[in-house]
């Protein structure tokens, strides 16, 4: 595990940052979908045209100094494992790593933003922050967007706004999301009720890595559904205020659990901690489930000696590709379970 400290430093900065309401909110993310004028959308473009998209974006960023040092990654040139690690860090989508041809990823040093080039749209500007900070995520995305627009001609229509490959993104091209940790609501079987109510308010619930992915460890991602006919500010403010209401509900349930069945709750959370500190083999899914309980224990002061930051780091490091990055080689599924357990034990006991 000699790589551990180095790999930790490479994790996105927001993982270690404090944030508003971060006992419930893990992160806030935002993306803007943009296409360039006079070039067909990626699925209709040929290789030459896709290359041109990249060259234009590269040129647009050549002189920039506002966003620190950037890394440009040609997706075909890195290993499948490295691609997966980038997805696990939420810098690109699962769709993006499926077919790496003609795709590029631009990230900055602290990894709080990324540009996906030639995903479903020519350009996807993404920002990510700790805690409930959709407004700040929008601010940064707008700054990047405005900078790029100084030299890129976007596909824009007066009526339909920014034109996107899928009509569900047309208009603002915005998708703002909040990653919520809802172990309390899940425990009392209320999470479905609360989340399904959100769909009436124009809010979608998605899995850990976005559309069509699964939900693990009581983590739920909620995001705006509508992109046309409302301004970016309206959409993000709406998501923020709805998130605040869910956060309040989660807090109320946590308090009620402490009040009404403290012993049961303590037992469950401490048992989870016991397994994590003793297990010799552990799958990614089981680890996420137990992290959820331990995180709740830490937030409620039931489990001490483990910091929130350490848990957040572990939630990332124990994902498959990042784990293999630490051990610097490809691991078989069995080896992964073994090394994951070793990593977690070492980190939680240190």
């Amino acid at each position, binding site marked *: 595990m000699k790589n551990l400290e180095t790999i930790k430093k490479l994790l996105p900065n927001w993982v270690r940052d404090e944030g508003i309401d971060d006992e419930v909110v893990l992160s806030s993310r935002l993306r803007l979908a943009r296409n360039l004028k006079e070039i067909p959308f990626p699925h209709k473009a040929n290789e030459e045209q896709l290359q041109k998209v990249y060259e234009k974006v590269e040129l647009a960023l050549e002189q920039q100094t506002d966003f620190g040092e950037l890394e440009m990654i040609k997706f075909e040139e890195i290993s499948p494992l490295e691609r997966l690690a980038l997805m696990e860090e939420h810098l690109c989508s699962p769709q993006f790593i499926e077919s790496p041809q003609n795709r590029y990823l631009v990230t900055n040093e602290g990894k709080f933003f990324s540009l996906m080039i030639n995903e479903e749209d020519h350009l996807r500007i993404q920002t990510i922050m700790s805690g409930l900070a959709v407004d700040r995520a929008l601010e940064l995305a707008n700054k990047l967007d405005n900078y790029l627009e100084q030299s890129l001609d976007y*596909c*824009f*229509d007066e009526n339909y706004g920014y034109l996107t490959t899928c009509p569900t993104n047309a*208009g603002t091209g915005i998708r703002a999301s909040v990653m919520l940790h809802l172990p309390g609501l899940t425990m009392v079987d209320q999470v479905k009720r609360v989340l399904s109510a959100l769909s009436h308010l124009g809010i979608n619930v998605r899995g850990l890595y976005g559309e069509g992915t699964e939900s693990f460890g009581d983590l739920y991602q909620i995001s705006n559904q*509508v992109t046309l006919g409302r301004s*970016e500010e309206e959409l993000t403010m709406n998501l923020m205020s709805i998130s605040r209401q869910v956060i309040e509900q989660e807090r109320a349930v946590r308090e009620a659990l402490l009040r009404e069945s403290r012993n049961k709750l303590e037992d469950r959370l401490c048992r989870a901690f016991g397994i994590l500190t003793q297990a010799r083999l552990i799958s990614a899914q089981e680890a996420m489930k137990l992290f959820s309980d331990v995180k709740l224990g830490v937030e409620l002061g039931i489990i001490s000696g483990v910091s929130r930051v350490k848990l957040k780091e572990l939630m990332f490091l124990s994902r498959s590709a990042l784990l293999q990055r630490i051990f610097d080689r490809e691991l078989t599924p069995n080896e*992964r379970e073994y090394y994951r357990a070793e990593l977690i034990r070492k980190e939680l006991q240190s």
Partner: protein
Amino acid sequence: MLCQRCNEKAATVHLTKIINSEKTELHLCELCAKDAGSELGFIFESNFSFQNLIAGLLGGELSAPQEPSVEVKCSQCGLTFSDFKNAGILGCGECYSRFQAGLEPLLNKIHGSVRHVGKVPQRTGGKILIRKEIDSLRRELQQAITLENYEKAAELRDEIREREQEL
């Protein structure tokens, strides 16, 4: 094979999950599969995608009146309206104006609106930005008149005229 959950009905839903090459198999009856949804971390109707939904919406009553007898084709990228109906995605910016008749009811259905009110590109937005500004000045003017603030109204009227010169 019997359902692994209830051990009563025949298993008709067979799930093989491969996550980062870690494979798990599950055999359930339809009822248990639906029921087990959230617990297992998957949604039973997960084939239900936006693309299918759009194709469904376009195939229904929405497109019927506008359906042209001759296939409409985008002159820039070559996408046909049937292509769009099948895949739910457009081929280029030009598609939006080419397929406007079929697309607008769909956009309305998805977003409840067909008019963008958000951000406009700063550099290339030029006249659109000015028109938006005039719109908002007109609203202010209307309000000033309602409040009988005629001095302010006169100022706003002059400003609107000035901006209109720029168009």
